[in-house]
């Protein structure tokens, strides 16, 4: 999990494909995700380690041409500042920068975490309450309207899975990367392909959507197509347990 697979060649897929992230998660989410993944305590973060991980992810997101919000960059600056502080405590003048000190960051993370947990409990309440139906003229339709982009797996879970997949594929088929594919497949074409694929089987493990002979660019295109289909509510990404296997599920109707 150390080095990112995409480091070597910044063979960008045009920025036309850039995916807006505003329906997805923010930098605090990413930070919390990384902290929990490394089984750290929020109050006791190892700044140097977390900063490194965070920057790796930012790098990955940028290479995928995800439209990284400025908040992600501010957080990166904060982390770098805190890291520099831990090495040279008086090196930088914090007041000159719009960033937080360690205490403030920890407090922000703890506050955020509390609301995130509350939201998980609320989700559970909703799930329990769904088992009863009230009298209603148009129950079915109402419920249909209420359905949101159902990403049970978060963006960061998807990115994690993508990272694992590309690492594995790279290991399997090194030669595939040598060929330069003149005909670049577009995100739209890939979306059509994936939808056809999802017609055959209702549920597919995430990594099965990536061909092992695909070039790096094609893998990126596949990933972007998956994100776009989630955004358009055609598919759902569901994860079994925290950090578990991700399945892509076709949405009905």
């Amino acid at each position, binding site marked *: 999990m150390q080095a990112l697979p995409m480091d070597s060649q910044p063979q960008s897929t045009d920025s036309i494909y850039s995916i807006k992230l505003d329906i997805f998660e923010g930098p605090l989410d990413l930070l919390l995700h990384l902290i929990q993944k490394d089984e750290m305590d929020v109050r006791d973060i190892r700044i140097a380690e977390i900063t490194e991980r965070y920057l790796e992810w930012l790098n990955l997101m940028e290479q995928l041409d995800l439209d990284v919000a400025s908040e992600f960059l501010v957080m990166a600056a904060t982390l770098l500042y805190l890291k520099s502080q831990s090495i040279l405590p008086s090196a930088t003048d914090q007041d000159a920068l719009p960033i937080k000190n360690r205490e403030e960051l920890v407090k922000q993370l703890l506050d955020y975490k509390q609301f995130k947990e509350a939201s998980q409990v609320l989700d559970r309440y909703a799930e329990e309450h769904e088992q009863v139906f009230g009298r209603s003229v148009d129950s079915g339709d109402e419920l249909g309207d209420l359905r949101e982009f159902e990403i049970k797996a978060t963006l960061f879970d998807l990115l994690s899975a993508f990272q694992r997949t590309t690492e594995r594929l790279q290991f399997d088929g090194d030669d595939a990367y040598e060929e330069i594919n003149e005909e670049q497949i577009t995100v739209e074409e890939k979306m059509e392909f994936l939808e056809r694929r999802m017609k055959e089987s209702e549920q597919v493990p995430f990594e099965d959507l990536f061909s092992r002979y695909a070039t790096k660019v094609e893998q990126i295109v596949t990933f972007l197509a998956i994100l776009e289909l989630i955004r358009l509510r055609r598919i759902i990404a569901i994860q079994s*347990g925290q950090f578990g296997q991700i399945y892509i599920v076709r949405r009905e109707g």
Partner: protein
Amino acid sequence: MSENSPTPPQDSSLGPTQIKSILEAILFAANEPISIKQFTQVLGDVSTHDIREQLIALEDDYQAANRSFQLIEIANGFQVCSRPEYRDWIEKFYTRQVRVRLSPPALETLAIVAYKQPVTRTEVEEIRGVNSDSVVNSLIQKGLIRIAGRKPGQGRSLLFATTDRFLEQFGLKNLSELPSIEEIEEILYEVQNEELELDTTDEN
């Protein structure tokens, strides 16, 4: 049931059974939770205490008769709902998946509004650490939150609060039923244990 048909609302001599039947009739005709206040408006002289008592009696009747529906208290009101054990049949009737689920960012924004209301979008963004325009808008569109006024002072930013529909969808009687920090920890602890059990059964 009473022998005589219930007389118009003005009459103060309604007996308990009649009150109960009237409440039931209203609940039957309505398609959303009815508040005690709404019942009082219809029943005129009947006290809120008596209304409450008859609502409880009504639910007792349903239980005693083993009906497939129940009277529940929800969203600052009362509503007749099917019992959970009939869920599968009703879903089959609707021939569609009825699972309603918000995305994690939408849920977390909703939680912030629920606990902090009335709250401005800037306050929500300070907690989430990210622009929340589109999430807030989609929650408004779904009727889960609403504009509840403007903050006094400079800028007069809009304030947001949750709606009755939010309470309804999440099965809450009112806002004081939002889980406390201790309850949240307890529930998540249980969920984690369940997930661990599921994981081990998965592997076998």
